[in-house]
């Protein structure tokens, strides 16, 4: 019943408060007891807030998680220029309309979709729930999926605790479980 409401589109297409190019730096400040949100492009952030280009706006945990996930899945090329051979969907069209065109778009735009999904789904990147019987499910969530979810949670924890040795081991376990 929910539409891709304006909130979803705003979320994907937030413009810089200053110059109206794509905002990539999102700040929340408490000023005089009031919450102030700022959305800036990299250039304006550098000028106004003294935030250096590159990584400062991304929490270190997120960066590391993305890094580890990217390697556990095998890095793929960015898909910004790709066009779906089935439905003709291109990434800019999706960003404008908020809706995908067919089931194949998810795999095609996987790389670009991942950060959006993480933001929309509380950091989650993988399904953990019912699997259709004809896709190998039992009509109820599978144990393997539950195991994977547990491993991913532990991986997150290991990264947060800066236990990289354990993180590497967990990453390999996830790789094995996924294959």
């Amino acid at each position, binding site marked *: *019943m*929910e*539409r*891709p*409401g304006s909130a*979803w589109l705003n979320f994907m297409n937030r413009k810089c408060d200053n110059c109206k190019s794509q905002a990539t730096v999102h700040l929340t400040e408490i000023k005089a007891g009031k919450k102030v949100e700022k959305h800036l492009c990299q250039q304006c952030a550098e000028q106004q807030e003294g935030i250096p280009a590159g990584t400062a706006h991304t929490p270190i945990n997120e960066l590391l998680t993305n890094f580890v996930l990217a390697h556990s899945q095998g890095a793929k090329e960015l898909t910004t220029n790709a066009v779906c051979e*089935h*439905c*003709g*969907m291109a990434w800019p069209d999706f960003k404008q*309309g*908020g*809706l*995908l*065109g*067919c*089931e194949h778009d*998810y*795999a095609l735009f*996987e790389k670009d*979709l991942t950060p*959006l*999904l993480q933001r*929309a*789904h*509380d*950091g*989650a*990147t*993988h*399904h*953990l*729930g*019912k*699997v*259709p*019987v*004809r*896709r190998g499910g039992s*009509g109820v*969530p599978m144990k393997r999926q*539950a195991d994977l*979810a547990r491993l991913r949670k532990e991986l997150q924890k290991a990264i947060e605790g800066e236990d990289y040795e354990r993180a590497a081991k967990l990453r390999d376990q996830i790789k094995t479980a996924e294959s």
Partner: protein
Amino acid sequence: MKLTDLTTRAGEWLRGIGPMSEIVISSRVRLARNVSGYHFLSKCTRHQRTTIEHKIRDAILGASISPKTLYVDLQDAPEVDRQLLVERHLISKPHAQSEGARGVAISESESVSIMVNEEDHLRLQVLRSGSQLEEAWEEINEIDNKLESTLDFAFHPRFGYLTACPTNVGTGIRVSVMLHLPALKLTGEIEKVFRAAKDMRLAVRGLYGEGTEALGDFYQVSNQTTLGKSEEEIISDFKGVVIPKIIEYEHHARRTLLNDRTAALDDKVFRALGILRCARLMASEETLYLLSHLRLGVNMGRVKDIDIRTVNELFLMTQPAHLQKLIGKKIDGDVRRAARAEFIRHRLNAA
């Protein structure tokens, strides 16, 4: 079973019974599904849209999801019928207003509805009165399994069930409860609910879902995260954490009103009852506002001569399309407001 049969009775979910129904009006679980091998609707031609609609209609009617199933072709349905279905929470507003081949299947009890060609090919919904999320999930899961035996749903091992909008991907589940929170509104503490909901990553919406106002102190609370959690986990969070917490807030506000502001509480309740029993023109928004205070009074035992079922029925029947169906013709303006006032007076004075 015909559409007109619906106007003569309140749907199962609005009977005002069921666990914790003094605060939890209804529990809803919906699943978003798309059929593999077909484009999502935004990329469909008219012809493809029609093909999908026929395929799904046949699958639903062949799956015997309930003893009697009504299928309404919404492309041909008159506006008042589409509005009626919105007022009964059987279809969404966008589904009523959009164009092209689309429909809805409704079970006889009205607890199950399946929208065809809304934002996704299928939107399955189970709606039950009171706090019954687990029961609703069991029922919808069974229907999903039945449909899955003839329809191949788009699914990806990593992303789960694939939906047109990535905000629904994964389980495709939206769990929501409709809550009546008049005391929190009167004590000015409704913000507590918004804050708690935000902390738990839940959305709070109005009476008819996204983009609608919280009329009559009704709030729809629903999950926003559909990926990375199992269906059972999402439901048990609601049942174990979300609902009890908000109910406790509302109970606390009701106790405060009763103990510290008895005269003010009774004034609100009986002022509402007085207007409802005497007014000659009633607008729909004012009706919701007054019925909300009356419902609070009945549930708190301040009003003893009116049954809660009468109040629940009035919420449903005084909506524009329902009134027009009852009267049997299109009415608007003062004629409609007069008809509404008369209907309410008749029901409340006879009680």
